[in-house]
């Protein structure tokens, strides 16, 4: 697992990453995308979103407390703000070019 940009945050970061990774593998549940009804899927994602908060919410908050400070201290904050203004990216971008179909 990669380190945090701030050594003080690395252990919280890795704890959060582990929590997310375990949750995410269950979240994707490949069979769900193809075999479930829409209602089943909606119920699954709702339940999983809540579960993520319950399972990883506490360590996420502690990690954010640490990393948001580190971002300020490293002087990255103004660059980050500028990037957020230029490209908010609140929604996925539309696909740029359709991938060619027969690429190997």
């Amino acid at each position: 697992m990669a380190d945090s940009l701030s050594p003080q945050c690395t252990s919280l970061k890795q704890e959060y990453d582990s929590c997310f990774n375990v949750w995410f593998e269950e979240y994707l549940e490949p069979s769900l995308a193809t075999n479930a009804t829409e209602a089943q899927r909606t119920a699954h994602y709702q339940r999983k979103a809540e579960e993520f908060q319950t399972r990883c919410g506490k360590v996420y908050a502690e990690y954010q407390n640490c990393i948001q400070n580190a971002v300020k201290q490293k002087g990255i904050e103004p660059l980050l703000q500028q990037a957020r203004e230029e490209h908010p990216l609140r929604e996925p971008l539309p696909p740029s070019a359709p991938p060619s179909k027969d690429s190997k």
Partner: protein
Amino acid sequence: MHFFSQVFNYEHPWSTVVIGMWHKYPNPKCTHVVSIDVLDRTVDPKTGIIRTERILGCKQKTPGWILALFGGSEDAFVREISFVDPVRQNATITSVNLSLSQFATCFERIQYSPAPDNRTSFTQTAEIQARMTIWRSAADGLERWLVDRFEQNAALGKLGFTDVLRTLEDRLEERQTTPA
């Protein structure tokens, strides 16, 4: 302005590749990425889409003339926004450099979507552009250097991610065959 694009398939199903996204680093083939932090993550309970904002810390050997002209250091940061849509099975990643961004931007987009035969198509495009306000030949030099770094890192990224996916696939298969 320079454009870069490549399309190919990974020999793994979409779900493996998207799980692998979070395991790509640290990677012995991509040692330029030294840190990763999540700055924001939301899970939309209605659509199931996960949006993640991360910041990647990179170390690159930067030529002396770039440091002299533009300042900066060997520590560079990149902002990355990803969307994972589990219903439509689509993942997109958009990245832009924070360091040197007053002078030049490298705007990269990656998309992972399912391809026939349980494979996953990877589409990558990048636009590398020096901002207009700087001296032309310095701008060209900076742009060229960024393009070279990008192309090199893109090739290493493919190699490195292929290794990660192979290992991950083994682990996922093992998990499926082992009774819980």
